[in-house]
């Protein structure tokens, strides 16, 4: 190496060490720290919000929990006048509507997902996929109105009345379907919930099944498997864990859904006697009564209900996330 070049390099290195360059660098370092702190604070706000929700529910619900204890969950007398509150009706209503909704929605959602991945003509794949996602985006209050003005009257006329007229008194069918034939009952609420969670589960299942590597599916086809065998024995086991997570995410949505259910469930606090009986869910009870609560104990009982809902959904959602891992689900 020629000596001049060596000298030039030394000079260059020396120049970078020179002090004038240090000042802006240090300022940048300070800004770096501020920016990182800002980002960190924003992220922590999310955690604070979740803790805040839990804290507010615990503090607000404490008087009711203290007074009624475990009986709050297992008795069903809900009387604001005598200030006796038992939440078994809404709690059971929430669980039944969500599970019935899941049972109704899951097979259809699975069918839609398989259709989109395996059978759909390529030209229609995107439009139909988008349509399913749009269905998932419609606000719940619109589902509620549709349920109230379209589904409920139809259900009362074409399903409830014929059964009421024709079922032999005392038979299992008559017992399961007793109730006022106005279409506002547990089953119609479940149907609305099913329509709401169907596109959501379908979209996530489709995305999951798309992640099955093509060679895996192709080798199964190459061995002579039918489409059904490929889906049931290859694709589905491949994504099983995440698929269960997706289903539980759907269940979580159904459990916490408020407006669609409030419109159509009939809002009765009694323990539901049949699928055609009117009932209530935790969310619908809070939505209906919170602003008109008659006393401190009434308010507290409603917030305690909220706490129960929080604990149920948190458990379901946490399990769903643990199963889903890193799969995308926005």
């Amino acid at each position: 190496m020629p000596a001049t070049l060596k000298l030039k390099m030394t000079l260059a290195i020396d120049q970078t060490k020179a002090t004038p360059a240090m000042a802006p660098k240090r300022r940048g370092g300070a800004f770096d720290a501020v920016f990182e702190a800002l980002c960190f604070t924003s992220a922590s706000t999310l955690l604070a919000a979740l803790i805040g929700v839990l804290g507010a529910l615990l503090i607000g619900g404490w008087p009711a929990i203290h007074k009624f204890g475990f009986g709050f969950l297992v008795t069903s007398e809900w009387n604001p006048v005598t200030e006796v509150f038992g939440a078994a009706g809404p709690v059971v209503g929430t669980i039944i509507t969500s599970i019935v909704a899941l049972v109704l929605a899951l097979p259809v959602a699975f069918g839609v997902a398989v259709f989109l991945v395996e059978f759909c003509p390529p030209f229609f794949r995107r439009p139909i996929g988008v349509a399913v996602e749009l269905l998932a985006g419609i606000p719940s209050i619109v589902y509620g109105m549709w349920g109230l003005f379209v589904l409920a009257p139809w259900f009362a006329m074409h399903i409830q009345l014929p059964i009421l007229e024709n079922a032999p008194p005392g038979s299992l069918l008559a017992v399961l379907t007793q109730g006022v034939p106005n279409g506002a009952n547990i089953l119609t609420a479940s149907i609305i919930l099913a329509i709401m969670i169907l596109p959501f589960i379908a979209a996530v299942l489709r995305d999951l099944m798309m992640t099955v590597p093509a060679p895996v599916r192709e080798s199964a086809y190459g061995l002579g498997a039918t489409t059904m065998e490929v889906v049931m024995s290859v694709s589905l086991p491949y994504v099983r864990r995440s698929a269960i997570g997706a289903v539980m995410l759907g269940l979580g949505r159904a459990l916490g859904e408020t407006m669609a259910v409030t419109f159509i469930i009939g809002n009765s606090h009694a323990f539901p006697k049949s699928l055609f009986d009117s009932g209530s869910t935790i969310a619908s009870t809070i939505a209906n009564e919170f602003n008109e609560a008659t006393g401190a104990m009434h308010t507290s009982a409603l917030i305690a209900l909220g706490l129960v809902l929080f604990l149920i959904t948190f458990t379901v959602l946490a399990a769903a996330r643990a199963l889903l891992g890193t799969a995308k689900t926005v």
Partner: protein
Amino acid sequence: MASQLLIARRKISNTAFVGFCWVAAAVALAFLAMILWSLIEHGLGALNLQIFTMDTPAPGSPGGLRNAIIGSVEMCAIAMVLAVGFGVLAGTWLAEYAGDSAYGKVVRFVNDVLLSAPSILIGLFVYYVLVQPFHGFSGLAGSVALALLATPVVTRTTEDVMKLQPPALREAGVALGSPLASAIRRILWRASSTGILTGGLLAFARISGETAPLLFTALNNQFFSLDLTKPTANLPSVIFNDALSAYDDLVRLAWAGAALIAFTVLLVNIIARTLARETRRS
């Protein structure tokens, strides 16, 4: 013989399976069509100029939804400003600074839970923090409740998009002497802007129809008001009250409002998806 039977059985069950999937897809699309049809039938018929120029009426007198539309727009705008501010910064922290740290994992998990948490519980929380202490329902409380629902969506999309950016982009910025914070703002945010915009639009679509969190925070208001420290009229609450009323004209207004919200949400969703698709292409 046996294998022939087996093949026949497999063929039949496969045909049934294929048929079931086609029917399932048809059922899902039929529901979308039915809901859209009721919105068009009941909603578009009720939409007219009055809806935008008059305030919510007493039963029997003419009226529109002006105050509710303006209230909703105000609250959603404030909520989106808050949500984009917090969400983008939180998403940036998760993508750039959190790494594999335990706290990062906790925040990511909490964000995922908030993403699907029942909105009515968010309403109760805000009631305790912003309504009860100040002795009154307010539009601002409603905005905060909506912001709490929108932020997790923005956070999630921001994190996802920023993680998709090649590390070389970040390294190039820092190698040129830029502080990491500037590299993030000037290079990474710019490269991710379409994705972040998509997240914002999806968040907006999510909150614009939310009703439950507004019931105990913004309440409702029969009259026109721009004062967000007072109860504020909003479309979802008006729809909820009017749809359950016994008056035909109020029910018609509720349908008009529902159509307005639903088509806005559909439009925003479509724009967001088109944007997302463009990004993926380029």
